[in-house]
Structures are given as structure tokens and as C-alpha cells.
């Protein structure tokens, strides 16, 4: 009995020692669990993507810039610590959190239920809508108005799925799929298509149609909301982030960022 106990204790100690060794051998990982951990460590590590203008990009001085980057810097400023950026690609966002390479992900991280099984989301700090765009004079308010018209979109985007569904439900909508946004834009500007699926911001709003008209957003297909992603089970950090985002929303900072980078107001940001 006692011997068995002793053996367990010894084995336990050995296991502890082993894991301690492994831990020290492993590279220093950011595993902050509370806001205090982050502050006492002296830096907040935030994962960003610099290939998603205007949210994340590289500026003329080869520094990260954009909506998400400026927002991430505000987080650092509010915590009173410098921000260390880690660059990720969009499929790398969840792994960056799960492997402790970052405390937070600020990278057009759309809030979805399947993702929420793996990470916690803050309330949205920004949002973007997939919309239908057409010249000002054309009278388009819903899918029904697209019947008999040519609607362009970029193959494989969110708009593709949404408008393909709409075309199935409303026979007579002719869908033209382009391989890239530049071709889609060109088709819209040259009048080869009557309307297009796109984002609520973008170069299209700066162009004129073949008869000199401006383009405008006609109606919203779907709005995606971006939240800050953190590891699950850290309620202290989550609560702080939600509070912080609430204050930025109230004092107009988020709206200012949207105007600065997207040239268009933010959609209403619901909370949860």
C-alpha cells in the first residue's frame, strides 16, 4: 500500500520535473491569462495580417498600417505596453492563438459560430458588408430588381455564394464570374455588367460609369462583423477588451478609423 503510494509520488515528481524541463526547453511562449499578466510582461503580442488592405497592409515605410493595425496599437496604448506584431495569414489566425504565439488576433476576424468553438471573440470593433453596387440612376433595391440584368462578381468570394443563391431563387439574373476584382471593376466601368457584388468600400466608389455616373451601394447582401480573437477561458482579458471596444465606439474612434481607411461609415455594430 505504502509502496504503491510512494511509487505514485515518485512517478508524479518525475513527470513534473520532466514537464518543467520541457517547458523551460521550449521557446518562451506568450500565455498571458489576465490583463495583469500582459502588463507585467511589458508587451502585448497581437497577430495581424498585412495582406488585407485597407485593414492590414504595409505602408511606404515598410511598416504595418491599416484599420486593424491602428486599432491594435490603441489596445497597446490603453494597456500601457508596447505592441509586438506577429504576422499571420487568414488560416493561421486560430493556430496563432492556440499555440500561444499571440495574445490576440486583430485581423478582419469574422465572428462565426464554428470559430467560436475554438477561440473567444470580443464584441465587434468593425464590420463590413457584401453589397450589390450599381450606377446611381439604376433602380435596384432587391434581388427581384436584378432579374434580366447582368450581375458581375469575383469568383469564389462571399458575394459569389450569396448571389448564386439569389440567381437560383430569381430566374433571369445573369451572373458573370470574373477571376479577379480588377477585371470585375473594368467590366462595371465599361458597362458590360449592370450591377456587381462587392464590398461596402473599395475602388469602385471612386470610379465613374461609362455615362459619367457615380456608383453606389444598392442593398446589403450580408454583413460580416470583426471581433478580436483570444484564447478561450480568459474572461479577464475578454471583459477588458469588450469594455475597451465599448468606449472606442462611444467616443467615435472606431467611426473615425472607418472614415480614414474605408472612406465609408461603419455598419451598426451589435453587441453580444
Amino acid at each position, binding site marked *: 500500500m505504502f509502496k504503491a503510494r510512494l511509487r505514485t509520488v515518485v512517478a508524479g515528481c518525475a513527470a513534473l520535473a520532466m514537464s518543467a524541463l520541457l517547458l523551460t526547453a521550449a521557446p518562451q511562449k506568450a500565455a498571458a491569462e489576465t490583463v495583469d499578466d500582459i502588463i507585467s510582461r511589458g508587451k502585448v503580442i497581437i497577430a495581424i495580417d498585412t495582406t488585407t488592405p485597407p485593414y492590414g497592409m504595409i505602408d511606404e515605410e515598410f511598416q504595418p498600417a491599416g484599420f486593424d493595425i491602428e486599432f491594435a496599437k490603441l489596445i497597446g496604448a490603453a494597456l500601457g505596453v508596447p505592441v509586438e506584431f506577429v504576422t499571420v495569414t487568414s488560416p493561421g489566425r486560430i493556430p496563432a492563438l492556440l499555440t500561444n504565439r499571440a495574445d490576440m488576433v486583430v485581423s478582419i476576424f469574422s465572428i462565426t459560430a464554428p470559430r467560436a468553438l475554438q477561440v473567444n471573440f470580443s464584441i465587434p470593433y468593425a464590420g463590413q458588408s457584401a453589397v450589390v453596387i450599381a450606377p446611381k440612376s439604376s433602380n435596384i433595391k432587391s434581388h427581384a430588381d436584378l432579374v434580366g440584368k447582368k450581375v458581375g462578381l469575383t469568383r469564389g468570394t462571399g458575394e459569389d455564394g450569396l448571389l448564386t443563391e439569389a440567381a437560383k431563387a430569381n430566374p433571369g439574373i445573369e451572373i458573370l464570374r470574373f477571376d479577379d476584382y480588377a477585371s470585375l471593376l473594368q467590366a462595371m466601368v*465599361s458597362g458590360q455588367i449592370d450591377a456587381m457584388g462587392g464590398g461596402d468600400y473599395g475602388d469602385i466608389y471612386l470610379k465613374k460609369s461609362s455615362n459619367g455616373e457615380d456608383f453606389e451601394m444598392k442593398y446589403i447582401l450580408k454583413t460580416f462583423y470583426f471581433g478580436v480573437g483570444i484564447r478561450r477561458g480568459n474572461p479577464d482579458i475578454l471583459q477588458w477588451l469588450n469594455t475597451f471596444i465599448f468606449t472606442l465606439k462611444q467616443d467615435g474612434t472606431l467611426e473615425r478609423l472607418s472614415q480614414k481607411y474605408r472612406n465609408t461609415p461603419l455598419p451598426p455594430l451589435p453587441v453580444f
Partner: protein
Amino acid sequence: MPSYVFQFGPILIRSEELIHGAWLTIWFASVSMVLGLAIGILGAVARSFGPRWLSSLVAAYVELIRNTPLLIQLYFVFFTLPFLGLKLSSSAAAILALSIHLGAYATEIMRAGIQSIPSGQIEAAKSLGLKPYKIIRHIVLLQALRAIYPALCGQFILQLLGTSIISAIAAEELTAIANNMVMQTFRSFEVYIVVAIIYFILVQAFSLLFQGFSRFFFRWKT
């Protein structure tokens, strides 16, 4: 080495779409082959026997088309012509650009064939009192076509494969449908393998067809 698990199921379920895409490819290829050959024959005749201004005009056309990429020609017809008042649908623009493209190559190939006819034959036909139209049709063109037939078929096959880029102006064909499938199923490896096989079969079928034509049209002995 990372292992990859092939899953052809999600693609084969949608084989109807692929067959539809193959038909569209055949349609674009065939129509542009017929139009391109017509342009080629007329162009070569104009280049070889026409007045000087016409001959230089054809030469300029051939040089212009053969020295620019098909993709740019497609963009030009679809995106630029609307600014000049000519708005063509994706399919019409694709057919126009493909035909003009093939026409330039066919003109050069046909011209080579025409040059291969010994001038003595034309002189003999003239002295027999044949009208110029008949000389061109019976003496020159038929023999020229036979001489350049293999080269022409090669160009036709390139044309068939070249239709794969017309999705750039949103025309629907096999490659466009394949790209849609890739975006929806994310099985790019499998989709492109299946599509490559379909293209291979199409080319083989066209080659057989061309052989059949040649047996039928070029039966005389040389």
C-alpha cells in the same frame, strides 16, 4: 512527405456541369475554327493575289495579332470596345477575339501553302482559259490546304486549348466551370486532374475528326 487523400466524389457528383463545360469548350473552339479558317483563306488569297493596299492591310493585321497575346485581345474586345460604342456579350466577345486570333495564324499558314504551288501550274491554268476564281479555288486552294493541313490542325488544337483563358472575360467554358468547382469544393488537385483528362480526350477526338476530314477531302494522289 505529407500524404494527400484524393477525394473525387464531390467532383464526380457534379459531372453534369463538367460535361456542360466540355460542350461549351467544343462550341467555342468549333465556331472560332470555322470563322478563323474562313478569315485565313480570304486573308491568304488577298495577301497573295490582291492589290497592293489590300495585301499590306492583311500583312498589318497578321503582324498586329501575332505579336500580341490572346488575353490582351480578349480584354480589348470586351473591356475597351464598349467605350467605342460596341458592347458585346462575353460569349460574342470571346468568339470574335478567338476568330480574329486564329484568323491571323491561319492566314500565315495558308499563305505558306499558296506559295508552295509551283507558278507553272497557275500559268498552265491561265493558258487553258480558266477564270481567276476557278484557278484559285481548284488549283491553288485545294492543293494549298492539303499541303498545310497538318500545320493547320496543330493550330486548331492550340485554339481548342486556348479557349481555356476566355473565363478572363467571364465567358463560361470548361476551365471556368472547373474554377467554380475548385472554389466550392476546395478539391483543386482532383478538379484539375479531371479537367486535364477531359481536355486530353477532347483533343484526341478533334485529332481523329481532322484525320477523317483529310481522308475524305484529300483523296487524290499526288
